[in-house]
């Protein structure tokens, strides 16, 4: 197994091309991103709600400033409806966070501010008035408000305290409702986002797969020669699947993580600029450590992937080849080899484990460090009345949210890079173009008579290795032509050129006097069909294997099978024509497969036929049947037979003898024998060798 590139760097060009595939899903993506932002916002809002509830209702404190001294506190936003009692203006403590400790000290010296902790109640309601009445001494009153020192408040019995604070209790309940709405919103939006993103990813995968297969099917055979089927299958399946990771992991989780982390930082700054700034200073180490471990995690992942694929390749190969291992008594050696490979995988796994075993605890420790710093500086701010308890708690809460995504950040980067590599391989494939140009517009003659002419055809698969040289001949409609020659003489190439699986380098091939390149490719291929040596069977029913998706009725299929004597063996199969064949037709013999491929041709009824005779081992009786079927098959069609059997050659109207890509002789069997040339020698050698197969 070749070790394919598992990880590539971030490549903007690949990203851009992948984004092209997002176009049809634009709307979905927009809504997904919207869902993502909304759910992130909801998640960030919850600590803020909690902070508000703590500062406004749970742990409430007021300071008071002298009326008329407001100019001293010009920086403060003093609400117009701030409670005013006996010449003092009561302000919640968090209002003062704009002032520095020194400014407050200055104001204190002037007697402009009183930083004792007060609680302020809006008056009204019988129960509240009753409590105030009972404890007149500790309250300072105005018409609308009552203020009380917190120390004094705590001396009251619990019941009375609850009465005074019923508005706070109600406030908490309201905050809880708001909290619930945010949670529910977060749930809905994040599901929406996951669902839409997955849907987009699935859609893109489907499009990509269709594109790859469509692209491949549209290419000439050169493409298949360059790309082994195994790796093409990997492109269509696994590589596309890793590209999907880009949508599911990267888009949903990395984007979400990043917006959450940015959101946390922004919220921190909004809650308190100073503490936000200090907290922010603790973050760069996280950044550098993550960067460092990202590289190590990637390297470790690479190593693991490499050894995983080696172990799997070894395993799968030796399971398939177990009989060979046992025949050659190699069990001990294999056990040792496998154990070595598997040991390398273990080493790679352990070193990957170590990367994460170091990284995660470090990040965890950094979380605690940040919390420590927040609490310490928070405490300083609190002393100076710069910060409220609620804000401090919200900071602790939020910083936890910041660090959680960092934990698997390194892992996600690795996934992102490997899906980039997947994308790179897919696009590299899509960039390969080996198309047979299909520009012909000429309609086929009606009816096609089947006259074929090769006019000075030159062709080579690889440059400088000419396979056909100035090949020229004519074939009349209905004629059967045998093509003989040694291996490599260019026999099979003729077949591929006729059906335009390849195109000639120079010269031309004419059907009924017209260059085959001027017909639409599909029309041409319907008229000229090759029958290959190794018959490919699809794992579908016999009917489908004969009709191959063309518009052919079942009756026509059965008639075709009868013509080539395939009917009798098909009927003997358990489900007759509806028998589902094995992958690669393992439940049919070679001969039966050959007959099936004949039936295919008869059903599709081409005017020109190219038959590559099988050389494989078919038992002699089946071979007789094939010969008879062949006669029916060739009837009424212009046919080229790349012949290996003497009987076939003898029945041909004409024999073309190829040697080194050139036509060296042509004529009937007896004509050619009497000429005592290449054919004679070929024939004589094979004949004297006493072999069944005359020409190979």
């Amino acid at each position: 197994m070749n070790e394919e590139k598992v990880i590539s760097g971030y490549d903007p060009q690949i990203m851009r091309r992948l984004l092209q595939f997002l176009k049809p899903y634009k709307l979905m993506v927009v809504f997904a991103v919207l869902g993502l932002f909304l759910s992130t916002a909801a998640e960030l809002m919850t600590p803020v709600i909690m902070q508000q509830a703590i500062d406004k209702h749970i742990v409430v404190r007021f300071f008071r400033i002298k009326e008329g001294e407001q100019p001293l506190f010009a920086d403060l936003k003093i609400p117009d409806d701030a409670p005013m009692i006996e010449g003092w203006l009561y302000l919640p403590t968090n209002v003062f966070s704009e002032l520095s400790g020194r400014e407050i000290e200055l104001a204190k010296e002037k007697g402009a501010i009183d930083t004792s902790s007060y609680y302020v109640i809006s008056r009204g309601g019988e129960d509240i008035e009753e409590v105030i009445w009972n404890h007149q001494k500790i309250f300072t009153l105005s018409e609308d408000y009552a203020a009380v020192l917190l120390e004094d408040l705590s001396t009251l019995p619990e019941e009375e305290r609850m009465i005074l604070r019923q508005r706070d209790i109600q406030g908490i309940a309201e905050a809880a409702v708001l909290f619930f709405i945010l949670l529910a919103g977060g749930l809905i939006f994040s599901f929406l986002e996951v669902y839409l993103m997955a849907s987009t990813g699935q859609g893109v995968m489907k499009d990509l797969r269709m594109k790859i297969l469509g692209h491949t099917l549209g290419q000439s055979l050169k493409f298949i020669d360059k790309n082994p089927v195994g790796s093409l299958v990997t492109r269509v399946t696994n590589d596309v699947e890793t590209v999907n990771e880009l949508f599911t992991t990267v888009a949903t989780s990395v984007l979400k993580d990043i917006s959450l982390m940015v959101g946390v930082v922004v919220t921190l700054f909004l809650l308190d600029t100073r503490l936000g700034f200090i907290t922010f200073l603790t973050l760069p180490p996280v950044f550098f450590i993550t960067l460092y471990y990202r590289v190590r995690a990637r390297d470790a992942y690479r190593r693991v992937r490499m050894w995983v694929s080696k172990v799997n390749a070894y395993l799968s190969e030796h399971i398939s080849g177990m009989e060979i291992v046992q025949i050659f008594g190699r069990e001990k050696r294999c056990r040792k080899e496998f154990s070595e490979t598997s040991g390398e995988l273990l080493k790679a796994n352990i070193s990957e484990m170590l990367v994460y075993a170091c990284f995660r605890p470090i990040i965890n420790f950094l979380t605690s460090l940040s919390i420590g710093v927040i609490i310490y500086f928070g405490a300083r701010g609190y002393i100076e009345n710069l910060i409220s308890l609620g804000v401090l708690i919200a900071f602790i809460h939020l910083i936890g949210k910041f660090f959680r995504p960092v934990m698997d950040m390194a892992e996600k980067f690795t996934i992102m890079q490997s899906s980039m590599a997947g994308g790179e391989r897919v696009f590299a494939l899509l960039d390969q173009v080996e198309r047979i140009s299909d520009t012909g517009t000429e309609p086929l003659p009606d009816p096609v008579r089947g006259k074929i002419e090769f006019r000075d055809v030159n062709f080579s698969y690889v440059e400088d290795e000419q396979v056909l040289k100035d090949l020229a001949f004519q074939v009349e409609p209905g004629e059967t032509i045998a093509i003989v020659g040694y291996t490599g003489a260019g026999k099979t190439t003729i077949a591929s050129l006729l059906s335009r699986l390849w195109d000639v380098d120079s010269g031309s091939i004419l059907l009924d006097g017209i260059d085959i390149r001027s017909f639409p490719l599909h029309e041409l291929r319907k008229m000229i069909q090759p029958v290959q040596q190794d018959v490919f069977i699809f794992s579908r029913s016999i009917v489908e294997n004969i009709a191959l998706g063309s518009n052919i009725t079942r009756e026509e299929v059965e008639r075709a099978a009868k013509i080539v004597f395939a009917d009798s063996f098909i009927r003997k199969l358990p489900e007759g024509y509806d028998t589902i064949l094995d992958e690669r037709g393992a439940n049919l013999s070679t001969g039966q497969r050959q007959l099936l491929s004949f039936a295919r041709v008869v059903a599709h009824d081409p005017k020109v036929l190219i038959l590559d005779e099988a050389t494989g081992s078919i038992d002699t009786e089946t071979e007789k049947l094939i010969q008879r079927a062949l006669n029916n098959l060739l009837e009424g069609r212009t046919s080229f037979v790349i012949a290996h059997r003497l009987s076939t050659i003898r029945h041909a109207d004409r024999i073309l003898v190829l040697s080194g890509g050139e036509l060296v002789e042509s004529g009937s069997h007896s004509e050619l024998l009497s000429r005592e040339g290449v054919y004679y020698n070929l024939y004589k050698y094979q004949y004297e060798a006493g072999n069944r197969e005359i020409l190979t």
Partner: protein
Amino acid sequence: MLKEFKTLIPYLKRYIPYYIAGLLFLIITDAAQLLIPQFIRKAINLIYTGNFELREILTTMALMLLIALFVAIGRFGWRYFIHGASRRIERELRDDLFSHLLLLSSTFYRKMKTGDIMARATNDMRAIRMASGMGFVAFIDGIFMMIAILIILFTRYPQIALITIAPLPVVTLFVLSFGKMLGHRFKRVQEGFSRLSEHAQESLSGIRVIKTFVQEKSNLSRFEETNEEYRATNMALVRVWGFFFPIIGFLSGITSLLLLKFGGVATLKGDISPGDFVAVLSYLEMLIWPMMGAGFMVNMLQRGAASLERINKILHEKPDITSPPEPLREIKSWDIRIDNLSFSYNGEDVLDNISFLLPEGNTLGILGRTGSGKSTLIRLLPRLLDPPKGSIFLGGQDVHEYELSLLRSAVGLVPQDTFLFSSSIRENLSFGNPDMKEEGIREVADISTISRELETFSEGWNTQVGERGISLSGGQKQRISISRALAIQPPVMIFDDALSAVDTETEESILNAFLKKRQGKTNIIISHRVSTLHAADSIIVLDEGKIIQRGTHEELVREEGLYQEINNLQKLEHHGERGQK
């Protein structure tokens, strides 16, 4: 379920020190982790009272960081030991699985396909690793943390403990029921993926047929259906799976909500301090993971058990072909005698009462139609399939009496289907005889004529043959396979129609060189071609598992029967030609 885990016991035992160390670290981590909120609580309470020295806060935080350091070390420790142990167990189990696979015969490999075995060796192995690593951690961690946190919550904050933890059991139940719902959806996605791969594989392998019959469009539209199906199963999974983390987030949010509502009022009343409020918030967050872990653990153990069951299916498969308890370690001669051998396979009679004698140094030819039992017959000799006792004798002893590796190394078999390993040509040639010298390789390569093509290989003997020899032609593969068997210079050599992809001229020269090399040794040659069998000292003709004819080529040609019939058919063409001439 527990029964399946028995297989793991010996492995677990070997790593007991790892698990104990891991456990210790885990408990240190958990205990230290539980202390952290207490420091925060203390600091917040200090701050709340307003009467504090900054130094007090500083020392509290410093202490907290010290504890956090313990947490970090502990986390490293348990990961190192427990993941380390589970990785090592995985490796040993995989090695043992492969060792066991090496002992199993083709009877087993007929039953279980390569893809299936591979799935067990990879996916199931992963599930077992999860069960023995993360499953273990989740179990211990979950139980310890859950109990400890519940104790802390109920003893210190009894007023709000019960109400705030109410959503947590729901988390566990949710994860559990989710696992079940997801299970079969995952399975369907995997099946969809297999179908997709199969379809792609088939379309791409059959591309010539598709192109010549102009079926690109119909093929693509079929592929689109498969694709669409796969997409649908994926979305069915997402509809459930997509809810998972949002719901977990929601439920953990609900605990915070309950704390806000009830803890908030309790703080306001003065029942608990603001520091307590924050501490409970931290504890509740810490509880989420063990609660999820409990659900995960059950799933992981269930999956682990299911996977172990699948692995056990292989491990418990008794090797049906083994050496006897007291094996013979020497083969005295290379006479082969087959006595009334009948053999049936999968309930089908393949061979019926076969008897023959093949004296040392002779060559036996076997002719027969496809399915006449030839390939089965020759697999019985080196016990790749097991013959009934008392039917096959080598050197006068029942083949069952010999040590298996001795028997097999004595018999060189060139099977009909050539299988090469994806290594270099040299490594393939010396597969059975790794210490072979350059001249030896040269010699066996000359016999099969593969050496003629040496210069066409880009790197000579060191050219990689690709997966299963993909870069070679059929004939090249067959010839390498022949050389490979010759390299071990086996006293008995069997050729199973091994020259079908080679042209007649080459076949001739290979056979001549082969027989010369094998002079005086015992050979069995199977072929479809009468011409190939010329040189055999004696020939048997098999039909439907019976010997219907035996004799030399000359005798059989004269005798009426299948041999003559085939010979005539293969000669027929020449007679026809003679007439024309």
